[in-house]
């Protein structure tokens, strides 16, 4: 059974300036030392990206994350994906996770669509045999047909989105994390996606999607959470979304 628990999650980003990426300059700093090294290591400047976030999701929940740019939606998604380790609190995700946060997944752009399916399947935890068995189903759902044999660099972003979505929902992932890019899909794809996402409720899976579009959130999600400057509201039912939007922002009391 899939479930997600986030408790008192806080995350700080160390601020590393562009010029301190050079080892040469770092070494020079150390060699000069003395009065120039005013800042000791523990006072390295950092940015608080998430502050005391709490949420609990169970099977069948589809949570929409809403908030302005820079409020921490993608950061929270990355914490759920396991990419960021919390500085305080904890994140617990049970179930196979498929994260659709970066369409290309770092795969070389000359790789074909089929190779991408294979890679995504492997990252999601399937064996090569299982992927081979599912490839036809994924190919059908993506609607890309002969394009699957062509390199990803020939795809539009909408096509990439279709492929990524088809793969992620076919690998029996129990937790699906999406950043706002479903908007690049055309109307036909959106209808298909919605149908598939709704069926995830029947399969007792969890969806977390970050979005700016209230209508998208209303059509897909059954719960919503609002973020502002790294702070989150509580999880409310989708019917209370208007009330949640009308309230003062969660970070405004700080």
């Amino acid at each position, binding site marked *: 059974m899939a479930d997600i628990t986030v408790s008192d999650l806080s995350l700080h980003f160390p601020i590393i300036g562009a010029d301190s990426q050079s*080892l040469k300059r770092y070494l020079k700093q150390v060699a000069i030392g003395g009065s120039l090294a005013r800042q000791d290591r523990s006072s390295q400047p950092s940015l608080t990206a998430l502050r005391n976030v709490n949420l609990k999701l169970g099977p069948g929940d589809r949570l929409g994350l809403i908030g302005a740019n820079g409020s921490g939606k993608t950061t929270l998604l*990355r914490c759920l994906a396991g*990419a*960021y*380790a919390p*500085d305080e609190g904890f994140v617990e995700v049970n179930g196979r996770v498929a994260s659709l946060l970066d369409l290309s997944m*770092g795969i*070389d752009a000359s*790789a074909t669509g089929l190779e991408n399916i294979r890679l995504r399947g492997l990252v999601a935890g399937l064996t090569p045999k299982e992927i081979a068995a599912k490839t036809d189903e994924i190919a059908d759902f993506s609607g890309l047909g002969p394009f699957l044999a062509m390199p990803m660099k020939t795809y539009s972003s909408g096509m990439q989105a279709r492929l990524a979505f088809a793969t992620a929902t076919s690998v029996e992932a129990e937790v699906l994390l999406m950043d706002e890019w479903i908007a690049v899909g055309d109307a036909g794809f959106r209808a298909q996606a919605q149908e598939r996402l709704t069926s995830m409720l029947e399969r007792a899976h969890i969806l977390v999607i970050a979005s700016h579009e209230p209508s998208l959130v209303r059509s897909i999600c059954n719960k919503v959470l609002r973020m502002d400057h790294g702070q989150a509201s509580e999880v409310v039912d989708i019917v209370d979304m208007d009330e949640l939007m009308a309230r003062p922002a969660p970070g405004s009391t700080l």
Partner: protein
Amino acid sequence: MRRSGRKDYLSEFAETGRDFSETFNKIPLAFNLAWQDILSRYRGSVLGPWWITMMTMTLVLGLGINYAALFHQSIRELLPFVAIGLVMWGYLSASIAEGGDAFVLGAAMIKQSSIPLPLFILRCTIRNAINLAHQLVIIVAVLAWFQIFPGVNMLWALAGFIILVVNLSWVGLLLAMFSSRFRDMPQIVTAVLQLVFFLSPIFWKPPPALAHSLFVSANPFYFSIQSIREPLLHGVNPPQTLGFLLPMAVVGWAATILIYNQTRRRVVHYL
């Protein structure tokens, strides 16, 4: 999957241990990523990795024959020496250079999944092993030509190779962590490797006069290659294999794990 804040020094080791055990559970993923890397590197190429085999063979023949004449050594003595030296050096230097880039290459995956960091080093190790497999034909061909049959001594060479792989892994992981923070490292590493290549007896036999120089008596690169070369050519297992390289592997991994323990949470933020 459970991720929590840093509690204390010892609990981090449990997390580090979990990273490594998850890596070993995901060996098929590492293998497929490595295979995908090789496919994309040689996409559109006719001979693929065999180009490198051809280039290395040409170098082996050129250096072997010329230097034999230049330094009045027999081709029979020098050519197999050069062949094994160049092939193993190619593997060694590629492993170190690519190891440093392992996290940068996998940045997209590190930033959106819980794939453990050591897996990216394993991917690099497998990828380089596949490339090495294409070069081994040079060693086999040269040994067969000169009718050198190592027999059971191949086991010593294999042991030397395994110790080499273990050493390259910790060096790779260490460099990967530093390179994710300091983007100059890969260039520095490449420059140092080039220097080491010329200063070490990889493709030239050290004369007895140089036996006490550091490049011959305290050179882990030379020892690593000798641990494979000597058993194959002379049936001798050099003492440095078990006396130097094995302790180096143990100490190296111990130090690397301590540094990994401290750095593992930070890597994603540097990328």
